[in-house]
């Protein structure tokens, strides 16, 4: 177990963990200490700090501090659900395509290529155009945008393992395909998946927050940091805190998760001494190309 926590001993990892812990504490415990309800009108719109409002009021007259304390839960829950769904989808596609070969393989992986041929946000907007926008569409849409990258990693890991002797032995024992996928192949793709977890999560927070900012996710009066930035831009010169505080919290969350994710992937074998542009997951992930399996020598 100790080697699994190696990332927590690097300075970047520790720093990231502290930031994430603080933001998580605000998001999860905030509602319990919030002075007002998130959609309770408590004063004049756009008032600067003072008069019982530590951070002033927002564009409608809600207490900014209360909305900040309530608005983190959805930021985190949306990103977590989208990532979980994206991982489930991507892993399933990658496992099936990598093991089956033939027509199923090419069909699945070509579909993956098609999605990757779009800018991620554009693909999401096309989905929104066809099915409208809601919380469910937000989670599923972000998951669909993320799944191809994950599918690609799992695919290459599965292809590598599927010729191993213990897989052939399992086939010879007469195990079902489902059992082989779950017991022989899935465990072998896990390290790569974990190495990408933190970075996928960063991207998930970025994307869900961006969609909420664009107004295509949660709708007012929902309290959400991204939504707060968007709706309070009109009163920016009256009470900048209504934008600055949620913006800082989102930034802290993504930076923290990114630092932890980077530390994890370094501690999981991607040592800093064997660098390769194709295996810098932090850089690759932002472009939708999750390729994190260490490359062997070129032949």
């Amino acid at each position, binding site marked *: 177990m100790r080697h699994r926590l190696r990332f927590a001993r690097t300075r*970047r990892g520790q720093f990231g963990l502290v930031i994430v812990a603080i933001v998580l504490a605000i998001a999860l415990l905030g509602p319990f200490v919030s002075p007002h309800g998130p959609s309770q009108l408590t004063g004049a719109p756009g008032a600067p700090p003072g008069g019982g409002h530590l951070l002033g009021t927002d564009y409608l007259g809600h207490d900014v501090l209360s909305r900040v304390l309530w608005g983190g839960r959805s930021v985190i829950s949306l990103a977590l659900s989208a990532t979980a769904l994206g991982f489930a989808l991507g892993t399933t596609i990658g496992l099936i395509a990598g093991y089956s070969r033939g027509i199923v393989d090419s069909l699945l992986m070509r579909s993956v*290529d*098609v999605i990757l*041929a*779009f*800018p*991620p*946000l*554009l693909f999401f*907007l*096309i*989905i*929104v*155009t*066809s*099915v409208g926008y809601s919380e469910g569409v937000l989670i599923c849409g972000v998951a669909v945008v993320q799944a191809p990258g994950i599918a690609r990693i799992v695919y290459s890991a599965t292809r590598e393992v599927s010729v191993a002797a213990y897989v052939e032995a399992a086939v010879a024992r007469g195990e079902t395909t489902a059992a082989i996928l779950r017991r022989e192949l899935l465990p072998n793709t896990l390290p790569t998946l974990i190495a990408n977890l933190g970075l996928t999560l*960063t991207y998930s927070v*970025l994307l869900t*927050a*961006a969609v909420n*900012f*664009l*107004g*295509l996710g949660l709708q007012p009066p929902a309290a959400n940091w*991204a939504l707060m*930035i*968007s709706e309070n*831009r009109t009163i*920016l*010169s009256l009470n*900048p805190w209504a*934008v*600055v505080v949620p*913006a*800082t919290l*989102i*930034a802290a969350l*993504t*930076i923290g*998760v*990114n*630092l932890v994710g*980077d530390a994890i992937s370094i501690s999981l074998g991607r040592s800093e001494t064997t*660098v*390769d*542009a194709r295996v*810098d997951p*932090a*850089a690759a992930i*932002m*472009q939708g190309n999750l390729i994190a399996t260490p490359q062997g*020598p*070129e032949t």
Partner: protein
Amino acid sequence: MSVTETALPEPLSAQPALRPRTAHPLLRFVLRRVATGLLTLAVASFVVFLGTAVVPGSPATAVLGRLANKQVVAQVDRRIGYDKPLPERYVTWLFGALHGDFGNSAVALAQGATSAPIWPIIRDPLLNTTTLAVITVIFLIPLSLLLGVIAGLTHGRLPDHVISVLTLVFMALPEFVVGALLVVIFFVVLNLLPPVSLLSPGAKPWSDPQILVMPVLTLLAVSVAWTVRLVRVGTIETIRTDYVQMARLQGLPERKVVRRYVLRNALAPSVQIFALSIQYLFGGVIVTETVFDYPGLGNQLLQAVTSHDDTQVQAIAFILAGVYIAINIIADLIVLVLVPKLRTQT
């Protein structure tokens, strides 16, 4: 180790771009790359069309409301062309799109306009977005080469640590957070720049450079981080190659080794990195333009999505996807010309 040759390679510029020996496989590669690109574009156009057209509820219902008279809806559908079978609509649309004719704005027709061609509506936004992207790239390339090479050459030492941590921080920042914080700094605190980038219709963005400052800074802040990271990795890799070690062993001065062998070989792969970031710019502008109300293609797309203007979404999505795919192909071809080693492998 990716490069195993021990001999010093000729400087890249000394090699003719096309030697007769390699011309044939090179040509074949170019043709194959362009062909797959066109195929991808065709599939992408299908996805764009299908994604926006096979929807319950045509633009007519969106504009007229769900409870609108069915007859009126059918009438509007007929005018937009929504009554024809899907394959026919797709073929008509695709052929039009390839000629730059994207049809009429569905919402405008549903609202009673007799004709509302899309191309004139999106021509200016396309120009504005291109301006934004080009200016960003002009700053992006030298900046990321400089920082990336510095970090790579000082690998493991202080400048590298500072640059690496900063890139990790910046690449995690969403565009709208950077944009919002820039507005707070430059508008609320310093009162130097306008908070929104409004343009009067028909005006060109370069006529009022002030409005470009914050959008460009935002795009730079979020894109420079990954290009720096990748240039850094490329530099470190090149320093480790045998031919750089060889050059050092031959006693060449370090400055000459860096300039002649490290930089040249580290820069060629950067072409692909910059292509990726330009690709990103065409997707990332959607949020950035919204933050500043910049009248570009991303802003226009968002308006079209929220107003359920399907034909306009199709047109803009097709253009953006096309640019995305085209940049990919061009980058692959440039890299092929710059890195002779790859030619023999294809």
